[in-house]
């Protein structure tokens, strides 16, 4: 059993945070992780920065650009994380784009993640068909959970295919948008959350994109198993730094 599955089995209304590795400062990766755990966050997505993040809005893009400028690389991230399991026990997911993984070597990447104690991946531009044909076996061999996205436009048929291929949770993108681009949820979102809940999928669902305060967190977790906050957390880090984490988490839950 993977830490992700454990956590989802024992806890509801999960709070998960996305942050970009090496942001705001190159050496902030580990302190941010430790602070998130200390403040009661349930799970973390560690963003591996990429030059061309297609699915991200301006906030996460800018944090990635800064992290790359700071000198962040895949090799350095693994180096920073090598002792992370001595201090951090919550589930850790690497979220990034597929090209840096491909250049590192997919199998080497998986091996390294297993050594470190990474629990899974969110790779938005690795599509279902490619995953199943080329990578599923490898990811599973190294005990890594792969997380797929669905959106309000994803057909029921495809959601079922994605559910069958998933072994951790399903990442529900709250609306048709890149990250960080909306405020508040309307009826369309709650209908969508309810529709997915009624599908009785095998995998739990966690909502992301557009969660930025306690209202959106509550609205999302009313129907689902948890929510992921990205851009709002990055914005907070940009202005307040690591010291702001405690207040930020308290303001959400």
């Amino acid at each position, binding site marked *: 059993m993977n830490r992700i599955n454990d956590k989802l089995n024992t806890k509801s209304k999960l709070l998960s945070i996305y942050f970009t590795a090496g942001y705001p400062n190159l050496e902030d990766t580990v302190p941010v992780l430790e602070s998130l755990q200390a403040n009661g966050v349930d799970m973390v997505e560690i963003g591996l920065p990429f030059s*061309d993040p297609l699915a991200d809005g301006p906030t996460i893009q800018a944090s990635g650009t800064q992290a790359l400028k700071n000198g962040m690389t895949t090799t350095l991230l693994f180096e920073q994380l090598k002792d992370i399991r001595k201090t951090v026990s919550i589930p850790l997911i690497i979220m990034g784009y597929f090209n840096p993984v491909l250049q590192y070597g997919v199998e080497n990447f998986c091996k390294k993640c297993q050594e470190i104690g990474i629990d899974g991946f969110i790779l938005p531009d690795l599509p279902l068909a490619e995953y199943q044909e080329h990578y599923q076996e490898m990811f599973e061999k190294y005990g890594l959970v792969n997380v797929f*996205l669905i959106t309000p436009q994803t057909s029921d048929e495809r959601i079922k295919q994605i559910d069958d291929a998933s072994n951790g949770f399903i990442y529900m993108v709250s609306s048709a*948008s890149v990250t960080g681009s909306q405020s508040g949820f309307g009826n369309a979102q709650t209908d969508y959350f309810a529709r997915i809940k009624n599908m009785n999928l095998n995998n739990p669902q966690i909502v992301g994109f557009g969660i930025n305060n306690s209202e959106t967190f509550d609205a999302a977790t009313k129907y689902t198993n948890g929510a992921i906050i990205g851009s709002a957390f990055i914005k907070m880090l940009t202005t307040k730094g690591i010291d702001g984490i405690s207040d930020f988490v308290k303001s959400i839950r």
Partner: protein
Amino acid sequence: MNYNVNEKGYYGEFGGAYIPEMLYPNVEELRQQYLKVMASDEFQAEFQDLLKEYVGRPTPLYFAKRMSEKYNTKIYLKREDLCHTGAHKVNNTIGQILMAQRLGKKRIIAETGAGQHGVATATVCALMGLECIVYMGEIDIARQAPNVARMKMLGATVVPALSGSRTLKDATNEAIRDWINNPTDTHYIIGSVVGPHPYPDMVARFQSVISEEIKTQLQEKEGRENPDFVVACVGGGSNAAGAYYHYLDQPDVGIIAVEAAGKGIHTGESAATSALGKTGIIHGSKTLLMQTDDGQITEPYSISAGLDYPGVGPMHAHLFTSGRGEFISITDDDAMNAGLALCKLEGIIPAIESSHALAIFETRTFKPDDVVVVNLSGRGDKDLNNYIEYFNL
């Protein structure tokens, strides 16, 4: 070997659709519909009519007599520069606007580098009365002012791409983000044989009219459909894909692809993707691209904005790695001189992109009875400022 796309959307190991799930419904709809739509009589009738009456096709296959004498071989120029809007780009935008209408889309988005594809898109949107938004890197907006003005006159909204390096690759990122944010009413008209499947194949099919015409025209002029060589410049690779299309499986036709070496392949200021790229993923396609060891996409350089792209279409990546295509890179200087030479020899001012293809006669020899077709992808009007500056005219 098959050099065209297979049923999974790959050219050899290149291609596919590496897209976030948010784009899946749109790209999948297109994948399921494009061949059916393109095969319908009704679509073909409108497409062919517009190519003839609006674009001005067929474009001539012109025997360049003085140039042929100079290089002691038989050189034909496929005059895509005579297309309405000044380049081959419009063949694709006509096709895609008709496709967008069949798919019921009301809003058109596009990316552009030099502005040629943006102008061609704004043109067909005006023709059809559809809303048009063109993303263009902030830096390109500054260096391609006349094309920005053209797009505005044609009724398009030009949105500056402010992220990353603020050039073509970032404009493409912004167009993709727009499509994610507008998933139901919008069609994205990609400007080259790049992006997720089915785009490379769809764009290649719309551009394939180029080699279709070359076959008939060469039959008339030389008594054979096949030249010995067909030469084209490659940015993303759409004019090249169109010029090669009907010759891909004809082994007697040599395929020559010309990339921009910029200031030289090893200067760090180059766009010669086949020489400098490695397999990776850019804009939804697995292909050759210029990147760091860490998989970050790097910024290319070429004097020609249309060739200033860090990847190539998956068809060309496959032509390169399979050895079917001969890839040559040409520096800024050699391209500019070849452009000026064509003006003086034949009275034709070429686009700087096309000048790269023309420059190969200085670096590669052909036999006297070889028939060499060069795709003259565009005219030089848009590049006058560059020519003026470069030659102190």
